[in-house]
């Protein structure tokens, strides 16, 4: 699994790093951690910028999670970013698996979209704080990125672990990667898994029902308890609003997805920006 983690200097980014380090303990993922130099600090030496200092601290936190376990990364003795080109700087902790810290001087959203196109990660993880409407320095970086990239996105908000991961399912194609990602998160949070089929006029399409059954059997074969539930599309919005107060919302969004028709971009932005729930967009 390839994970791209986007960070800034705020506490939620530290929390994202802790979560990703826990996932990587199980998955030995290839990880890129990416941060951006603040406009005011662009003329300073990269290693003295606040983002470089924060990222060095994140790397130390990351390495400390491997105290007693075999570590697939090699943490350098000198935490020093070196220049890749005039706008990018690298600190590598790669070993058997890749762990790169990249600092960019470019505009965040475009750079992140480019990075996703280059690296094709399975997951992009980004943190934000609901009290600031999930904004990064007054810009809606997390929600904009979540809408623009082609990979799955995890927007992590509160430090409270969700009790249930609620996965909304329509007639979209379900990938093995997305199921494994959900497994990882369910294990990480010790959360219940709930698969919600979207019905239209209280009837579920055969394809949705078949997919629900396949998912149910997949998890039952792995001894992972799973709950199935149905929600009619007419009350989907109120359902998501309720769920987003305490559980983690996972939505499969893809080319064949009719969830994209039911849940507008504004609704997804609302879930990301205005609710306390961690949101997982699966693609």
């Amino acid at each position, binding site marked *: 699994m390839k994970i791209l983690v986007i960070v800034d200097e705020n506490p939620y980014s530290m929390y994202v790093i802790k979560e990703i380090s826990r996932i990587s303990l199980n998955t030995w993922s290839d990880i890129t951690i990416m941060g951006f130099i603040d406009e005011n600090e662009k003329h300073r030496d990269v290693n003295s910028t606040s983002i470089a200092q924060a990222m060095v601290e994140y790397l130390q936190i990351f390495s400390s999670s491997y105290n007693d376990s075999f570590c697939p990364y090699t943490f350098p003795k000198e935490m020093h970013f070196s220049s890749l080109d005039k706008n990018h700087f690298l600190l590598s902790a790669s070993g058997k698996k890749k762990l790169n810290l990249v600092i960019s001087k470019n505009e965040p959203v475009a750079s992140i979209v480019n990075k996703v196109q280059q690296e094709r990660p399975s997951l992009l993880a980004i943190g934000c704080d609901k009290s600031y409407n999930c904004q990064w320095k007054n810009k809606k970086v997390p929600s904009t990125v979540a809408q623009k990239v082609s990979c799955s996105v995890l927007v992590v908000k509160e430090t409270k672990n969700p*009790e249930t991961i609620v996965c909304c399912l329509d007639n979209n194609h379900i990938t093995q990667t997305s199921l494994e990602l959900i497994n990882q998160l369910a294990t990480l949070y010790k959360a*219940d898994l*709930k698969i*919600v*089929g979207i*019905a239209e006029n*209280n009837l*579920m399409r055969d394809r949705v*029902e*078949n997919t*629900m*059954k396949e998912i*149910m059997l997949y998890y*039952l074969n792995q*001894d992972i*308890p*799973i*709950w*199935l*539930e*149905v*929600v*009619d599309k007419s*009350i989907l919005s109120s*359902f998501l609003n*309720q769920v987003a107060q305490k559980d983690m919302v996972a939505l499969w969004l893809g080319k064949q997805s009719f969830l994209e028709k039911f849940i507008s971009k504004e609704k997804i932005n609302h879930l990301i920006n205005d609710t306390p729930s961690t949101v997982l967009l699966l693609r």
Partner: protein
Amino acid sequence: MNVLIYLDDNLISSISLRYICAQARFVPMSIRPFHVEVRGQRHYPFGVGWVRRTWENTVKETSREFIENFIKTEIHSCPGLLTAKIVVGDTETELLKEIKTGKYDLFVIGMLRSFGFYSFYDFLNGSLIKQIKLPILLVRNITHYKSVYFLIDRYTDVHAMLQNYFSLYKDLPYNIFFCHYAYNDQETNEFKNKLIKIKDCFKDFELDISKVIQLPTSVEESAHLLRTGDMVVASIEKNGAKTAITDILANIPNSCLIFWK
């Protein structure tokens, strides 16, 4: 135990069949799958002439093939599973007819939990429930927990409930927990006194008095707590009146065994 299970070839039938077959590994039972093929052609009454009868038989046989294939693909072995009975007609009418003529102890039907939980009350208020006397096992999800939660409040006749349960499930080797819902603090205190009185009743069934859980006043929280039971057993009124007990049953994601008061 003679069990009647209603099956279609859909997801919830798959869940309910797997669920009852898991119980059949512990509890001796004969399970009769039952399917009603809804009338496709309304302009001729069924079975009124040899031409119609032929058509009816064809529909029935096609349907039988469907359901038997469904059962075969769903489950490799299910102790006590009988051949499916297929009829053509109106679902509720045919189900009632079968329940009345067959000697069944339990009716099993699947129902996925739905947000807003109106379907649960629609089900309770439906004509099928109004006329049915059998206890119903409403299957919602496949669970592998080893406990059964008895959902009780101050109106519950605990002794009758235990008697009904053990007449069906005396061989089910699961732990039994009593989960008491109190509508207010006064009831919580009253229940403490009531507990002493029903202690003897517990002894009759060799149950440990300590296995009593006081549920929180929030229906949603209670339902969340109860989800770790393989099934929740409750005794409710047939008129479908909303109570905390029915609200909890509507909210739980796991299966419930319903006895009628």
